[in-house]
């Protein structure tokens, strides 16, 4: 079975001094030497914490696990980890063991027996996080659900393949649970199952936290206040209260557990954590947003009032003291500006007890400084230490009514370190508890180094990491979310939209097309003239107006003289008819546009269209005419096309920008219009919409010309892209953009109604597109 194990001499004969251990070893009936090596240790731990029945259950479970035929690892993991699991779920471990054994049995019976080892190896860490049998059961349920839904479904075979993601999920479980609640874990897992049940490699990437969307969903499900959700509020906060427009850059707290990054700022911006949990301190609750504001206020204060000093002359202790004093000076000044900040700072600031640190055994300088720091901010502090009181007084005296300086704080700090020095300050064991003030930045800006020192590396490192990538030649993609109607959530950063200038062809071709439609153009021109903003429109029958309307005035006067009640509305006035319209014409350039007009069933080629013309050519004519018409009206307009080749490549081709004129450059692009690929409508709508939303006009119109239902080759699920497109239309409406669809697909009614609500029209006779499109536009904007 497991190679390499058979050759080793059977360990069943191993003997132990302790009779109970010996008996247990016998009962276990295990031949693995590796297990025999640690068995005594494990038993000692078990004997210390288990009652007799618990011990029996433990050994029985171990015996079963030893006989699974998976080598010594699962048994080793179980023997070593179970006491911890049981302790974490203490009180109610009885129901938990059968649950765990049940899980193992299900795995063993399925093709997933390989996952038993990672399952047992991380179970203790998971239990430490979850801390209750009930929660651990939820976790087991999530794992089994994942297993059931990802096993054997590949290529439609029956329960033959193990779940590719399960072992990775089990390995990552402790880390996941440090960031997510079990509810969040379930959502995160569901997302991976839903999207990657049929892609073994991507499933592995997802569950081993390798892929971007895996991170993105994890981020979305996290507890606390996410930077991404409050970014605008923070920008506004900095600008409004501190007149600081610095760039904010979040760093990840999820994937850097070792270093525990601290906020800082440098030339490239202010770095803040990507998430802040609410804190429920003894001195009040502070929400994540308030914590962000505290961090920003503190850094803004440094940027306003701190200067840097040479670090080389100071010992590490002295530097630490300088930083504490300087941080307190900054916060005192901040509180002067906004007194309400005191409450927030104090609620976040630790309040160490005076007796918490033992100076006989431990270095207490940090502890002393943390108390002093609190005392400097809170006049009602509880401390009585005379040195602390003295320096508190000196600090306030130094500040006076002015701002003092970093330099003065450094002097005060040096004298503080000298006055309070203790032999034990040098001890290696430093008292850290209750001394970390996590809204303060790392103060790297405070120090200037002349000589390279070891510290230097620490300071350099993040800067190097954050170097800007080399200038990229093509535009990077913009990523848009996609709506998943099944889970009613967005798939974050799902579709990548690449924008490019449309290639150019021959502008004269477009002029020829326009000539071909000269008669139509003349007809349109008459209509356009009616629509065009007329500087003055007369409004008659006004009681108050700018001019006397003589006809009516005379008849009123006659009425008056005859003793009849005269019509008082004898004035007229003028109204200037302004139009404020921005319109973006978005063309579907997918493959189906290459179809022949005459080739469609039930289509009769009318007078306007020429037999054998493609829909693409017809669209070109129509768009040219519309462009010409809008140009006559003087509305601002843009033209773009789109097509897609999976969510990773949505092309958005720019044909005319709002500021471009209707000239040969634009006509040349229009002339080169080509069709291919698929129709990922939502992504294109969002991208076009972001341009329109930024336009100044009162009325913003997105006119979409699709020739089929939203579709793409990486989407099999019918209805997904349709519901995403509907969502995109709703998003645009919320931004003040009106979307209107003129569908070239005569059978479109059902889905266009679904996507566009009331704002759509289906073109029954596609050959009439050149005249329909401009008149539609005029109707819409009348």
């Amino acid at each position: 079975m497991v190679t390499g194990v058979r050759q080793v001499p059977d360990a069943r004969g191993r003997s132990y001094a302790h009779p109970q251990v010996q008996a247990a070893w016998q009962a276990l009936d295990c031949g693995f030497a590796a297990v025999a090596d640690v068995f005594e240790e494990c038993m000692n731990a078990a004997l210390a914490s288990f009652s007799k029945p618990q011990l029996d259950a433990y050994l029985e479970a171990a015996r079963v696990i030893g006989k699974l035929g998976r080598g010594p690892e699962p048994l080793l993991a179980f023997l070593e980890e179970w006491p911890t699991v049981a302790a974490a779920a203490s009180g109610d471990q009885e129901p938990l063991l059968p649950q765990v054994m049940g899980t193992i049995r299900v795995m063993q019976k399925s093709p997933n027996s390989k996952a038993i080892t990672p399952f047992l190896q991380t179970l203790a860490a998971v239990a430490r996080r979850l801390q209750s049998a009930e929660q651990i059961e939820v976790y087991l349920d999530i794992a089994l659900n994942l297993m059931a839904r990802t096993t054997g479904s590949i290529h439609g075979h029956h329960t033959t393949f193990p779940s590719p993601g399960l072992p990775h999920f089990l390995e990552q479980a402790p880390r996941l649970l440090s960031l997510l609640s079990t509810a969040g874990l379930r959502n995160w897992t569901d997302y991976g199952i839903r999207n990657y049940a049929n892609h073994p490699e991507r499933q592995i990437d997802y569950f081993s936290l390798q892929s971007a969307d895996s991170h993105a969903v994890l981020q979305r499900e996290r507890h606390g206040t996410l930077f991404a959700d409050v970014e605008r509020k923070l920008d506004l906060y900095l600008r409004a209260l501190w007149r600081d427009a610095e760039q904010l850059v979040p760093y990840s707290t999820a994937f850097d557990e070792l270093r525990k990054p601290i906020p800082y700022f440098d030339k490239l911006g202010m770095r803040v954590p990507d998430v802040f949990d609410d804190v429920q301190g003894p001195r009040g609750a502070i929400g994540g947003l308030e914590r962000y504001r505290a961090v920003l206020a503190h850094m803004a204060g440094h940027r306003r009032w701190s200067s840097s000093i040479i670090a080389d002359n100071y010992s590490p202790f002295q530097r630490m003291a300088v930083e504490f004093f300087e941080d307190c000076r900054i916060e005192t000044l901040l509180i002067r500006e906004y007194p309400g900040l005191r409450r927030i700072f104090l609620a976040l600031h630790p309040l160490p007890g005076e007796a918490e640190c033992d100076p006989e055994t431990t270095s207490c300088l940090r502890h002393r400084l943390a108390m002093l720091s609190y005392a400097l901010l809170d006049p009602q502090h509880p401390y009585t230490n005379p040195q602390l009181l003295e320096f508190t007084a000196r600090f306030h005296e130094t500040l006076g009514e002015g701002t003092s300086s970093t330099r003065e704080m450094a002097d005060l700090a040096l004298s503080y370190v000298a006055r309070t020095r203790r032999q034990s300050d040098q001890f290696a064991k430093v008292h850290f508890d209750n001394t970390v003030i996590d809204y303060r930045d790392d103060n790297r800006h405070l120090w200037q180094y002349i000589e390279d020192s070891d510290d230097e590396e620490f300071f350099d490192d993040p800067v190097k990491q954050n170097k800007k990538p080399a200038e990229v030649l093509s535009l990077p993609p913009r990523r848009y979310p996609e709506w998943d109607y099944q889970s009613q959530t967005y798939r974050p950063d799902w579709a990548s939209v690449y924008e490019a200038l449309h290639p150019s062809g021959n502008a004269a071709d477009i002029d020829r097309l326009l000539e071909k439609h000269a008669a139509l153009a003349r007809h349109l021109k008459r209509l356009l003239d009616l629509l065009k903003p007329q500087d003055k429109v007369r409004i008659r029958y006004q009681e108050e107006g700018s001019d006397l309307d003589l006809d009516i005035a005379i008849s009123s006067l006659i009425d008056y003289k005859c003793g009849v009640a005269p019509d008082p509305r004898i004035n007229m006035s003028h109204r200037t008819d302004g139009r404020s319209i921005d319109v973006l014409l978005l063309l579907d350039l997918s493959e189906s546009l290459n179809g022949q007009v005459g080739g469609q069933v039930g289509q009769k080629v009318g007078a306007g269209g020429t037999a054998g013309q493609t829909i693409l050519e017809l669209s070109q004519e129509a768009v040219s005419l519309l462009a010409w018409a809008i140009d006559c009206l003087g509305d601002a307009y843009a033209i773009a096309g789109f097509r897609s080749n999976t969510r990773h490549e949505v092309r958005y081709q720019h044909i005319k920008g709002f500021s471009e004129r209707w000239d040969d450059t634009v006509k040349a692009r229009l002339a080169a219009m080509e069709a291919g690929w698929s129709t990922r409508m939502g992504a294109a709508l969002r991208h076009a919409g972001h341009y329109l939303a930024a336009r100044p006009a009162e009325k913003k119109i997105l006119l979409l010309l699709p020739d089929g239902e939203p579709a793409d080759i990486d989407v099999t699920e019918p209805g997904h892209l349709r519901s995403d497109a509907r969502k995109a239309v709703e998003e645009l409406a919320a931004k003040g953009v009106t979307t209107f669809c003129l569908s070239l697909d005569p059978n479109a009614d059902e889905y266009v109604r679904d996507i566009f609500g009331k704002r759509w029209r289906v073109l029954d006779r596609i050959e009439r597109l050149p005249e329909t499109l401009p008149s539609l536009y005029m109707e819409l904007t009348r």
Partner: protein
Amino acid sequence: MSNKEQYLVRTEPFYQAQGREVILYEAAYAARLPVMLKGPTGCGKSRFVEYMAWKLGKPLITVACNEDMTASDLVGRYLLDANGTRWLDGPLTTAARMGAICYLDEIVEARQDTTVVIHPLTDHRRTLPLDKKGELIEAHPDFQLVISYTPGYQSLMKDLKQSTKQRFTAFDFDYPEAALETQIVAQESGLDAATAATLIKIAQTARNLKGHGLDEGISTRLVVYAATLIKRGVPPQDACRMAMVRPITDDADIRATLDHAVDASFA
């Protein structure tokens, strides 16, 4: 009708000068040069004109311009009565005849054709043609035209034409610096200076957001409102929200930020 008395500013309005605008205005008046007052809403433009009219002892006729206003609303029109039609002077005509200072508030709000009728009054001709009546009025020697104009506040469509702008001397107004503004608010509302200073501070946080989601910051006028409410016993935080934050924005993020500024400003 043209009773000069009724247009005189009888009691001295409180006006806190920000710079040398009083002397400079007097010089412009002495030369009868037209004046344009630029600056954000509620920063004291109207108050300044009122004060100058009082100081110079001239009648003041103020016209608040709006979108529906036409040239006839300024110049005058025919009305109907028992004897037929009768001409009624508009406020601009009245001012020109009587020798008043005519203050056209927010002139860009009015229609384009309105601005053209003031042209002959603003150059050496100092005349006002009443086309419909076939009369040409020579402006009274004391007449002066003053307009106000808030740049960037209206849409792009509404801007003064160069040919109009270049007929005026201009004063740039802005919200006064903090100490002065505090004094103004304290004086206007009777509120203590310390609280007034806090209100100004909050107003300034909003002014920092101009162009970043706010078209206009919190005006002196709104600060005076808030101060008045506090003086009448409304709790400061409530007064600030109601008179300073809520009126200026519907943007939830901005509201949250300004609300926070209000909370952070009061200990």
